[in-house]
């Protein structure tokens, strides 16, 4: 494909970069990324991937926009309160960049539908707010060998890691099983600084762009921890666990399961 004059202008700052260039920009336009969650993380992730010209962005979420979301979920607005988050986000992303095809999926991923959703995408980005989805997405990505960029936030602290299944660690190498319901508070219970998902979401989007471009070093075998209060970034090494229940040598988890029981759904 050839760039139009408008595309040359829109992506000029990418094209100038030796690590991107016209070839890299074409890779971005051809890429298909799935974002799980259209909340605090999903909004900045989708916003920046749209700006970058990632050609196909799938986004899945079952929620509707509420006024309490707007302190951090920047793709939504006062005018879209009550609208499904995926529709609100699609509107915002496509207004930013008409080159992007946003596929809005209102619903919740579960063991029965996740394979069908993931199969059309090159990279998955987790911006979910709950453990059942987080583990389900990890396991599905391991089974389907899809690169997964995982992010999480609470209060003033966030984490990012990039999972290249069977090459580096997976989420269960890091935390083998979800914590018991109620042990880890949700953002709803514990609060979150509004800008925090912006920082972590931008890091997740950066990881995805690097994977698409094949440039730099992703956060493979590494967990990045950001503390907003002290403005510190810490990298923790996460080796692959040979006894990992899903990606280890003798996996005990060989099919997808839902962990919904007892977890707060929001």
């Amino acid at each position, binding site marked *: 494909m050839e760039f139009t004059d408008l595309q*040359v*202008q829109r992506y*000029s*700052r990418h*094209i*100038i970069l*030796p690590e991107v*260039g*016209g*070839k890299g920009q074409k890779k971005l336009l051809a890429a298909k990324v799935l974002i799980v969650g259209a909340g605090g993380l999903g909004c900045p992730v989708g916003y920046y991937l749209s700006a970058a010209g990632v050609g196909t962005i799938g986004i899945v979420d079952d929620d509707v926009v509420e006024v309490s979301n707007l302190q951090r979920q920047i793709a939504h607005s006062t005018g879209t309160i009550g609208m499904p988050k995926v529709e609100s986000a699609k509107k915002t992303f496509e207004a930013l960049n008409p080159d992007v095809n946003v596929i809005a999926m209102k619903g919740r991923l579960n063991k029965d539908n996740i394979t069908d959703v993931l199969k059309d995408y090159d990279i998955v980005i987790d911006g979910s707010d709950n453990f059942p989805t987080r583990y389900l997405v990890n396991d599905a990505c391991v089974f389907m060998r899809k690169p997964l960029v995982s992010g999480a936030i609470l209060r003033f602290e966030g984490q990012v890691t990039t999972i290249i299944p069977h090459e580096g660690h997976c989420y269960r190498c890091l935390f083998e099983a979800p914590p018991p319901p109620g042990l880890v508070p949700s953002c709803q219970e514990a609060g979150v600084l509004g800008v925090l998902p912006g920082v972590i979401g931008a890091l997740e989007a950066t990881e995805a762009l690097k994977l698409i471009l094949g440039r730099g070093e992703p956060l493979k075998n590494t967990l990045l921890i950001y503390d907003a209060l002290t403005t510190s970034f810490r990298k923790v090494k996460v080796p692959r666990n040979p006894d990992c229940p899903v990606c280890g040598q003798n996996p005990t988890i060989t099919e997808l399961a839902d962990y919904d029981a007892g977890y707060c759904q929001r």
Partner: protein
Amino acid sequence: MGEEQKMQEEEKPVRKLDIKGLVCPYTFVKAKLAMEDMEVGEVLEIVLDYPEAVNNIPKSMQDHGQKVLKVDKTGDKEWVIVVRKEKD
């Protein structure tokens, strides 16, 4: 083939790019996109009329590892830059 003739052969542009009317950074962006479509060793001739780009394009091309063969003023407000692709 004489030395001089051989030199001329090596510097013979396979592609000409007219970017008159364009301003920075699109001058370089267009030139870079044209280079990306060429093979290593091939030569690009760029015709331009934006004075700033006469300095900027050769500098950026060198930064990107390409070889600037010549910069000529060919008119009152027209320049020709010839670049050989050294690097993909």
